[in-house]
């Protein structure tokens, strides 16, 4: 590619591409069900996300009662915003930046790589901007009432949130550019998944480091945070809170300006690197598509061998041939499909980081593993929802043509694969870490029991949302973030029960509570299996809708 053409941004192309990408994100599209096609998506999921994030932001604004001044309140807001927005950008970016399905549409068009990457970065920015805007809607108003607020405080916060969102999106684009450039196109397929896990670990770890700087038990020392701690220069939320402090606070502090300039500078560097210097998008995407076809035989046969060994071991549990087939299908996608692995990677990063923090943080050594076990109980929901998404939903027509009496057995096969291949390894890891972290108070390990008992019941939850078919829904922006939010909502009752167990253990009535839980879980399991079976329609009815 000639140098002059390669560094050019074609703004007309950028406009056309962003328009198309945004339209594709908000359109209702056909999804496969056992009754044929139905429409899904549209603005509904995005509106739901906006409402949920606004509520989340309102809760965050309540914390300003502790922080009280503009800089620290903005610092708290940016800390949460960057974490949430960064995670969302990470989980959406791999689909947007490395969509193999679009290569046949755009790969042969005269689009400079920089133009394509800029259009994609702006698409990610539009999505993350919506989330950041929702999260900061209430905090922007509340900032106006801080002790040291100037009238400009809300406007300053809008500007700082805009810049921090650009930073988060540009950093993600930059990271993928580095992965594609430094590690090379040949290894990109594996590298993207690794990069996703690594960055999620980084985000989760960073999110845990920052609160330790704000020791709320002893009050927050603004001076110490700004002057005594060198880490303030390394923490992105401090850079962007610097803008709030500089423009929105009556407190005169030269470091506000310096932090703000660092934020501006780093954002510009990330954007310049990510959009202008690193893009090799066209070649990378083409390379991914070809590599998918050229997958080497050894890993494939290894995966197949492992699958059949596991199936033999689980024989009595997988007696039904349809369950066994969908179990094998789910395992193949979990083991081989880049898209599925990348989507799961962002979720699994948390499960690797949080239990380890318990080892170093003695105050949370019992709470964190317990929380992770309860979250682990919800992992099948994440896996099942991830396995719904595909770039080729029409392939799910196979389930319509096959002589299957309803979709319940397909659901159970995929659910069992999620339990065996994702949930169990993660749980073993978490339990090992929990045993180490809670060795000083081993009786607290009893708290893991209620979660372990509830797991089979919780794995049935996705079957309640309607009929389940794997690989039946087209991938779209916001879908994965919404799924994470649904898991978050399901976590609330689970967390309440976890808390109840904790207090029961301290009050000495843990065993009676556990004795009550076991029959309830068994009854619930039988009831949910019945509901799932009833909800999945018989093929005789299903065929009426095919092609409609």
């Amino acid at each position: 590619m000639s140098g002059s053409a390669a560094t050019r941004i074609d703004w007309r192309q950028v406009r056309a591409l962003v328009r198309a990408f945004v339209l594709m994100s908000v359109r209702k599209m056909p999804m496969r069900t056992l009754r044929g096609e139905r429409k899904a998506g549209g603005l509904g999921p995005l509106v739901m996300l906006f409402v949920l994030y606004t509520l989340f932001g309102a809760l965050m604004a309540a914390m300003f009662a502790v922080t009280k001044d503009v800089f620290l309140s903005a610092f708290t807001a940016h800390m949460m915003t960057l974490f949430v927005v960064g995670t969302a950008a990470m989980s959406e970016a791999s689909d947007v930046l490395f969509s193999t399905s679009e290569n046949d549409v755009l790969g042969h068009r005269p689009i400079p790589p920089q133009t394509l990457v800029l259009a994609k970065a702006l698409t990610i920015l539009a999505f993350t901007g919506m989330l950041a805007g929702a999260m900061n809607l209430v905090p922007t108003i509340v900032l106006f009432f801080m002790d040291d607020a100037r009238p400009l405080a809300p406007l300053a916060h809008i500007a700082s949130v805009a810049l921090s969102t650009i930073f988060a999106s540009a950093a993600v684009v930059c990271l993928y550019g580095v992965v594609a450039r430094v590690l090379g196109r040949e290894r990109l397929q594996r590298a993207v998944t690794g990069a996703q896990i690594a960055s999620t670990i980084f985000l989760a770890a960073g999110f845990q480091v920052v609160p330790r700087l704000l020791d709320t038990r002893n009050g927050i020392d603004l001076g110490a945070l700004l002057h005594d701690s060198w880490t303030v220069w390394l923490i992105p939320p401090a850079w962007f809170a610097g803008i709030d402090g500089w423009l929105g606070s009556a407190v005169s502090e030269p470091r506000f300006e310096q932090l703000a300039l660092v934020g501006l500078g780093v954002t510009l560097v990330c954007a310049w690197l990510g959009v202008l210097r690193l893009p090799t998008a066209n070649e990378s995407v083409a390379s991914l598509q070809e590599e998918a076809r050229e997958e080497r035989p050894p890993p494939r046969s290894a995966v197949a061998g492992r699958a059949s060994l596991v199936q033999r071991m689980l024989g009595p549990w997988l007696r039904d041939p349809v369950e066994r087939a969908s179990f094998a299908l789910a395992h193949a996608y979990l083991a081989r499909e880049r898209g599925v692995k990348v989507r799961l990677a962002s979720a699994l990063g948390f499960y690797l980081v949080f239990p380890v923090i318990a080892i170093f943080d003695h105050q949370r050594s019992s709470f964190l593993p317990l929380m992770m076990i309860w979250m682990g109980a919800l992992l099948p929901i994440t896996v099942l929802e991830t396995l719904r998404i595909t770039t080729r939903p029409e392939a799910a027509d196979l389930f319509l043509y096959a002589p299957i009496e309803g979709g319940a057995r397909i659901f159970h096969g995929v659910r069992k694969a999620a339990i065996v291949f994702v949930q169990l390894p993660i749980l073993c890891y978490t339990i090992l870490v929990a045993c180490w972290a809670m060795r000083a108070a081993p009786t607290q390990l009893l708290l893991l029991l209620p979660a372990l008992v509830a797991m089979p019941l919780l794995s049935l939850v996705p079957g309640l949302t309607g009929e389940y078919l794997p690989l039946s829904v087209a991938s779209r922006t916001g879908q994965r973030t919404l799924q994470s939010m649904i898991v978050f909502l399901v976590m609330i009752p689970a967390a309440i029960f976890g808390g109840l167990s904790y207090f029961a253990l301290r009050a000495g009535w843990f065993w009676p509570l556990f004795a009550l839980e076991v029959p309830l879980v068994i009854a619930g399991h039988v009831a949910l299996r019945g509901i799932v079976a009833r909800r999945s329609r018989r093929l005789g009815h299903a065929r009426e809708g095919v092609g409609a």
Partner: protein
Amino acid sequence: MIRTRQLSKRYGPREVVCGIDLEIPAGQLVGLLGPNGAGKSTTIKMLTGMLAPSGGTAEVAGFDIGTQALEAKRVIGYVPESGAVFEALTANEYLRLVSALHGMSEAEAQPRIERFLAFFELSAAETGSKPLGSFSKGMRQKVVITAALLHNPKVVFLDEPLDGLDANTALQFKSLVQSLAREGKTIVYCSHILDVVERMCERVVIIHQGRILEDGSVPQILERTGMRSLEQAFNRLTSTQDQAQRAEDMARSMNS
């Protein structure tokens, strides 16, 4: 118009295209044939700038595909085998996007879009309101073909373009392709339907295992292979087994 020298593509130790030398002048309609996995689509992807070659050079309309990919892409039209489109867009939105990517103004693009849609008998109601995801395969293929020809390319790569088209539209499209070649466009036509290639293309290139096995007009190939039809010649060049006998054995084994 198209010139390749020792063009090759390698994935690890496996070479899928092995040093192809090809020269196609302007106005020629060339059929590119080969069994599945022969390297046809990989060759086309390299010629359209979608895939970087591992070795050799390729020029399209005078532009080196390695160093002047953007310039080459401006004069290329491509119908991919996958028939991929952005399914959430309507046909009009999709074609407007394609025209913008090729630098065409709205005033220039709209009459051309309408002309193509009329040629393929796609109604305004369908193209303006329904997303491409709800189109039938044939209707979608008409939009894919329109997207490939909209910017009046000098070189056109057609990979199984008749896929999904009804008999009348296929006939009409084949006539269009021949007319375009007569007007000076270079056309590379990739297909597994051998009799279509035999009737349409003045030159046929047969690829097998990444290498060119035959290159010439249909009569020349028949003469060299001593066969009576292109299908027989193709079978002789690319397969060592008797296909009819294999089919019979297979049918018998299904009942056992």
